[in-house]
């Protein structure tokens, strides 16, 4: 019979990567925000057509997509932190974490749809 360990003698071996990713994604979002602000200041789109032209540029789409992925990843780390802080029942926490992941994945798919597929 396997004896149950009395206490965890070592760490869960994760946490650092999330902490680092939170900082990196924040930097990506900050850079994109500054870039977008610069573009909007230099040549503010006058109407929907010119706004759409701005996003016809592939680089703009890739940068926007990187921004959105950073946002979702950042949101995942932040949301899980909130859940770890306040939701102490492990079962409920797991369910909420899964819901957060599924929502963010849906948003990521939706972003692809908006940036590349949607031609409304």
């Amino acid at each position, binding site marked *: 019979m396997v004896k149950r360990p009395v206490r965890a*003698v*070592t*760490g*869960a*071996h*994760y*946490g*650092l*990567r*999330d*902490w*680092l990713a939170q900082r990196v994604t924040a930097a990506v979002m900050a850079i994109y925000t500054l870039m977008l602000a610069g573009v909007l200041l230099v040549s503010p789109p006058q109407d929907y057509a010119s706004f759409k032209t701005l996003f016809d540029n592939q680089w703009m789409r890739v940068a926007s997509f990187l921004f959105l992925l950073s946002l979702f990843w950042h949101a995942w780390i932040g949301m899980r*932190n909130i859940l*770890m*802080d*306040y939701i*102490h029942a492990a079962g409920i926490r797991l369910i909420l974490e899964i819901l957060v992941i599924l929502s963010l994945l849906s948003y990521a798919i939706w972003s692809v749809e908006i940036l590349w597929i949607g031609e409304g």
Partner: protein
Amino acid sequence: MKFSIYRFDPDKDEKPYMQDYEITLEPADRMLLDALIRIKTVDDSLSLRRSCREGVCGSDAMNINGRNGLACITPVKGLREPVELRPLPGLPVIRDLIVDMTQFFKQYHSIKPYLINDDPPPETERLQSPEERAELDGLYECILCACCSTACPSFWWNPDKYVGPAGLLQAYRFLADSRDQATAERLDYLEDPYRLFRCHSIMNCTDVCPKGLNPMEAISQIKTMMTKRTI
């Protein structure tokens, strides 16, 4: 001088209440602890811990006008009246201003707060260069009064899992010690979303430390050490 003090005696009271006191201070009553001793001459049922009365033992940590601090080194002059005194937040109250520190010390012991060195002890001391010794400045001065950990929301929500600023400052004190050989084991133990990464860098710990230490900086140093061995 007017005081409003948290009172709770589990043998008599159903729930805690605030009791008002008005006392005349003597000229020698300069610190809050002096005032509390003065109050005890009027009402000896008021319970609090104190020992060295000079900010070294860390016994008389309490919440003073909403801010954690040591009564013995807090001047009464300048305190807003009525001075509202409560036990340290987040820990179970034993009586009045006395809290149960079991959880706090459990976290402190969890980080193995002692030198780990498997080399046979030398004839004299394990020597350090002045630079190596300087690494411990700002760390060894901690008196474990618990002002920082009990000001930390992450410690309030997860006192059983999060080591807390005091414990983490001590953890870094041994990580930074040139004589300690258990760096990898210590980092392994701390690499955990609860033990270390509940710290969200809100700096309440650094704000309240009555010894002027910076637990958040120590926590950042631990994260840096971890990053360096990972990337």
